[in-house]
């Protein structure tokens, strides 16, 4: 049985092909302006079943007739399969942030998600990198190199961008601004983690887990152990595939 798990996100479409409980292949593609086109190619590579998750799951359900699970369940499932002792999950994606507290065994105990704005997400970092004239990699490197951060008070992407522009014009060091931006995201994340009573070990997944400055700040600020998947972007797709009743490891 070959199960294809699709995580159709706002920035990337991630695919995992599962045979039994083994990942036999995976892909990460840009969503672009036509996410369906991004995964059409994945559908031609052979599978017996598909399970979709992510922002585009309903479209996939309507067009492919496949079962769907939410990102919350998919990340919980994927993370606890990768790290059997995990107690919580942090996923910072392109346009939303999720924190999930897990029961023993990986079921969702509680969760929190940001609401309609992109505050503190991958998109936020992209916009800020742009405002500072950095690439995403440079933004993270500058934040790591700075010994302290300036206080950024706006979490709203639009307001924070104005704030950053103001700081740049006042001659503030770009590295300290970059650090301040990362600090503001991590502060928000810790607030969410606290509200749901998240314990360690914490699995940090999603595209923003590739940002070394965010990883460092989460590691410093979170009381417990931080676990990083080798491929942080496919945890949701993996969890979706695992949730299929006929996958090797039914939940």
């Amino acid at each position, binding site marked *: 049985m070959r199960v294809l798990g699709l995580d159709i996100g706002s920035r990337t479409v991630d695919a995992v092909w599962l045979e039994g409980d083994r990942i036999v292949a995976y892909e990460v593609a840009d969503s672009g302006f036509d996410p369906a086109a991004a995964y059409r190619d994945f559908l031609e590579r052979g599978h017996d079943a598909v399970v979709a998750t992510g922002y585009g799951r309903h479209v996939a359900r309507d067009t492919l007739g496949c079962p769907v699970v*939410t990102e919350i*369940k998919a990340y919980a499932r994927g993370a606890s399969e990768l790290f059997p002792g995990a107690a919580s999950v942090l996923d910072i994606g392109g346009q939303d942030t999720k924190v999930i507290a897990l029961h023993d065994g990986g079921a969702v105990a*509680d969760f929190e998600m940001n609401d309609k704005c992109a505050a503190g997400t991958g998109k936020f970092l992209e916009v800020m990198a742009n405002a500072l004239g950095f690439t995403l990699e440079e933004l993270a490197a500058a934040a790591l190199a700075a010994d302290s951060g300036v206080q950024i008070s706006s979490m709203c992407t639009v307001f924070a961008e104005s704030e950053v522009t103001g700081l740049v014009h006042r001659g503030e060091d770009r590295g300290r601004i970059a650090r301040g931006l990362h600090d503001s995201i991590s502060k928000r994340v810790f607030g969410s983690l606290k509200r749901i009573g998240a314990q360690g070990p914490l699995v940090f997944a999603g595209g923003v887990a590739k940002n070394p400055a965010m990883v460092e700040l989460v590691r410093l600020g979170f009381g417990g152990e931080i676990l990083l998947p080798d491929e942080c972007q496919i945890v949701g797709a993996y969890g979706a595939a695992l949730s299929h009743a006929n996958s090797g490891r039914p939940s």
Partner: protein
Amino acid sequence: MSETVDYRPMWEELGLDLEAHDALLGAVGTLYKDAYVRQKDRPEGMKYFDFVISEIHGLRVKELDDFRAQGGKVVGTFCLYVPEEIVRAHGAWSVGLCSGAEFAFDEVERIMPRNTCALVKSFMGFKLGKVCPYIQEADLVIGETTCDGKKKAYELLAELHNVWVMELPQMKREKDKAFWREEIRGLAEKMEELTGNRMTAESLRTAIKEVNDKRRALQRVAQARKADPVAISGKDALLAVQVAFYDDVPRFTEMVNKIADELDQRVAAGEGAAPKGAKRVLITGTPMAIPNWKIHDIVEKSGGVVVQEEVCTGSRYYTKLVPELAEDATIDEMLDAIADKYLDINCACFTPNEGRCDDVIEMAKEYGADGILHYSLQFCGPYQIEAEFVERAAKEAGLPMLKIDTDYSMEDIGQLSTRVEAFLEML
């Protein structure tokens, strides 16, 4: 029922902006079709409500028009704290006014801050945009001081319409109760002044009975929601209460009782509007005026079912009845009974408001809810803050709770669906 009547001359006479009004009715029709008509296994009796909605600004407005042409008076209200019994005892009719959709917010935001709750912005928008025939039919709008947003908005509305405001106390001490009893008498005086009619013990008794009968019919519908499978969808049950605010009272009661009879049969036959075992959600929070079906729609399209709503367009409207006193009871005694019943409603505008937490937990158990969804309009301080106490009570009772703050826009549907679906998966 299907003959088409041209209501445009009536709307024009009422001063509506016909083009904007067409756009509004078109939007409501689309929303209704998507949220309601597509539902499977609806009770047959809901056809009445399909008809009511198809005539949302038509037949009922015509009835108000005819009533007023014969000298009748209509009052418009925005809140269940304005006792319909007293309005009716004076031979007048009470209608709930439009406040459930985004309309003319650009005009509203010229005179009000953007971060005002959607319900307040909505009623101002309907008035400024000239699209609510009900307010145009209202000889008097009766406001109440339930929240600061409404309180101040009534001052602005008073520049455009005949508005009179009742003061609802913010606490429930003996002196507040005494004060509220006086306010209720003030309402009776105001109604006498408006209608030129003096109520009698007989007319007040009849009004109490009629409005109680309406509430009893809604209680019967609620009863059928305790069954698994649930006999009626949450959306349909919500709609019944929304319409209760403005429909003709005896007709509404008769139609809802017919639906309740049908629901009793469905329960006995084990028939449901949702599959047996569907996750059961209790909603608590801010009111949902027509056509605000947003949260119910998300929950039920995600495979859950709303089994009760502890909101002003839900249980708070019909759970408590005005005591029907003995035949020789005086007007004063009846007015006190009315005052006390209304003050006993648990709205977040009171401090403290512990009774609401008790109501929520009790209802969750009674209706077999698997989880609680706390729904609040953004910028509604009282409900958004009180959510903390509800959450604590839910935790203590071992019930999961999801907290949603939103408005009337559709831009957050994607994220809300994910949160609601994940909540249902978790239950």
